């Protein structure tokens, strides 16, 4: 059973560079939606600002293209408003790990049920090639002429340390793997972080399609993503071999499930509003 993938086609002009890794992500996303038998009006795609963050314009679904670094909070607000919405955050590495780092920390702690795709091109694409948190140390960029000084951010280790309930990595050029990861993330109850290796053909001449292809490998079948320490160990692989697949999982209640007044009721958007409901509260001031 699957919905027609054409339903997710957007009428917006696309302004990504030819060959950009983002195309693979959008295609995998649509494939996942279709295979999950979803309809556009039941999905929300939220983002910040950046090349990746244009995604809500390029997929037909509800979209929220907010502020740079602030893709997550509106997504969370929307999920709270309507727990039946299938909520995706799809944004860049600068957006998700740089400007927006604080929201990532605390929404992982909430274990809110959203799927967060990070288009990790290890660069600031839209603003023309400055270093992002995931740019390799020493890499020269359009801003860091002598190379980036700070250590590279490891999103997988970071998410595991925070007890993120679903942590995966995929590769934008591997559409099947990626759409499987997206589906798994969306079917997972809780915060699903999927870091996606996404070549930026214009500004990142180091981490190219080839660079990634030479390194990625599928995580072994017998790997147990529930073992936190093993997962942490796995998260340290990078330079020569890059594991893709589900690296960490934890079963625990989602944010919505922790809050009885939301869990046990219809979505808040369906709540009947009546000023008189407040009379009883006023009485207490008597």
């Amino acid at each position, binding site marked *: 059973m699957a919905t027609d993938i054409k339903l997710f086609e957007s*009428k917006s002009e696309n302004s990504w560079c030819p060959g950009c890794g983002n195309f693979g992500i959008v295609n995998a996303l649509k494939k996942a939606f279709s295979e999950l038998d979803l309809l556009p009006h039941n999905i929300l795609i939220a983002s910040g600002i950046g090349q990746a963050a244009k995604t809500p314009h390029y997929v037909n679904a509800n979209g929220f293209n907010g502020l740079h670094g602030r893709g997550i*909070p509106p997504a969370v607000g929307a999920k709270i408003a*309507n727990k039946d919405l299938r909520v995706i955050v799809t944004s860049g590495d600068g957006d998700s790990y740089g400007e927006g780092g604080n929201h990532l920390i605390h929404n992982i702690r909430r274990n809110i049920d959203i799927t967060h795709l990070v288009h990790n091109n290890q660069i600031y694409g839209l603003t023309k090639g400055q270093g992002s948190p995931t740019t390799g140390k020493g890499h020269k960029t359009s801003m860091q002429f002598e190379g980036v000084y700070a250590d590279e951010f490891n999103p997988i280790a970071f998410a595991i340390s925070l007890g993120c309930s679903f942590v995966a990595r995929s590769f934008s050029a591997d559409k099947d793997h990626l759409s499987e990861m997206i589906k798994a993330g969306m079917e997972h109850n809780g915060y699903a972080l999927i870091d996606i290796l996404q070549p930026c053909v214009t500004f990142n001449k180091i981490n190219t399609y080839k660079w990634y292809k030479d390194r990625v490998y599928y995580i072994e079948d017998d790997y147990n993503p529930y073992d936190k320490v093993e997962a942490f160990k796995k998260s340290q692989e990078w330079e020569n071999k890059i594991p893709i697949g589900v690296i960490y999982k934890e079963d625990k209640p989602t944010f919505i499930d922790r809050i009885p*007044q939301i869990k046990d*009721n219809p979505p808040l958007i369906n709540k009947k509003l009546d000023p008189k409901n407040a009379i009883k509260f006023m009485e207490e001031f008597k």
Partner: protein
Amino acid sequence: MKYNILVGGAAGQGMSTISTLLQKVLKRKGFYVFANKDYMSRVRGGHNFVQIRFGTTPITSHHPTLDAIIALDQSTIDNHINRLNNNGIIICDTDLNSEDKRVIQIPMRKLSREIKNPRVFGSIGIGALLKIFGISIDNIEPVLRKRFDKNTSQANLEAFKKGHELVESHFNINSNNEDNHIIINGNQAIALGAIAGGVTFYSAYPMTPSTSVMTYLSKKQQEAGILVEQAEDEIAAINMALGASYAGIRSMTGTSGGGFSLMVEGIGLGAVAEIPLVIVNVQRPGPATGLPTRTAQCDLDFVISASQDDFPKMVIAVRNPEDAFYQTVRALNLAEKYQIQVIILSDQYLADYNQTIKPYNFDEISIDRYLSSKDDIGEGFYKRYKFTENGISPRIIPSTIESKTVLGDSHEHNEIGFVDESIENRIAMMNKRMKRISLLKSEIQEPEYIGVENPEILLLGWGSTHGSLLEAVELLANESIKIGALIFGDIWPLPTGQLEYYGTNSKTIVNVEHNFTGQLANLIAQETGFKCDKSILRYDGRQLSGTDIYNKVKKEVL
């Protein structure tokens, strides 16, 4: 007849419990009550006090002189004895010292030990105080039972009685009124307004003096079936609220100046994405951290122009706990009617003062959401930012209409929400957004006028000076001074009708504000050309009382 009591002590001495009890008892006895707080930014120690004014006619402001002091520590005596009237009274424990004849020492600590509950210490003082005012302590058990469990109630009752027995009555005041009031402060009024106005999600980050709005809502969230979420920071708070509003529920956030600073970018997002939102800013003195627990009206300029570029927004300064409730409900309706941000400005004084007022009339309020239906939006792509005559586009809730998707966007966009950089589209969208300002102008409420028909002196105020101005005008009018006051609630866009009317006819215009530069006066100059002749400005973190304004007018204006 009005009396003024001060209860003072160090943070952590339970002053809040004592003063609340006293207020409730006085209210229950049919008195009007007005109680304001003065406290330091610390959790223990320092010097804090509550001023409780009560009487048989409505009260709208605190007062500089005192009839009675309950001193829980020495510095209360030292700091306030000079404000005590000649026939005033100080009640304190026998372990404090004062040579002053007006001091009545009672063995509060000792007696509370006898009652075997050191916490009833203060209730002994209240018992004594009530006796001094000739107020009986009959029928106060219900007040206690509302607050305490049975044992504690019993202990407190005993304490009241002991206190009552120990002293002689000194003043004589009687209320024949029935108690048909509520007693509520500004933040509670906003919070209650939020529930009444259909707020389903409140996201905020604690910040004095706004925190108690969130605390109240949080306490009631399960019963009200809403969600209150403490965000990781103020940026998240406003962006979560925007997301929730976009997705279809009424949401709200609140903070003070520093947190508001962090929300500025989000306000612009709300504007361009046309997402309704109500934001409460409970002001305190700055700049930056400033004086966290004190009061000011110092963010008017700031909130009016907050965030890059021009867009319609509305600012409402709430004036008292009654107004705060109704305006919150109205703000929620207007935000959705015009798909804009409405900012409610309050301040620490109003946030924390308790006042007896008549219960809110729930028949006067309604929740109007202005949402569009499937039929309204027609076939084809849903245009979130459709060009319309009045600039308001049909708004639907995502997921509720099959095959319609809703695109919220922060760029300049076309009717659907797709990025569009063309000149034509930019001009059309800018005009569309700005059109709503004229609609807002027709919606705006004129300031409240109090005073004589043809004032020679016109006082101008906004927000929480309302109560003080009310009292000041009354005092001055009693001396046959031709005076009036215009007190702005809606303040942006600035309503100018009443101002033109009274401004043109009065001789002297005086702005009364709690800031340094006279922000209202500047705004009025910009919008109308009226210049204020004099200013009464206070910016030390404390509120001008009615008497303060009365004195300033007499000394500096007349």
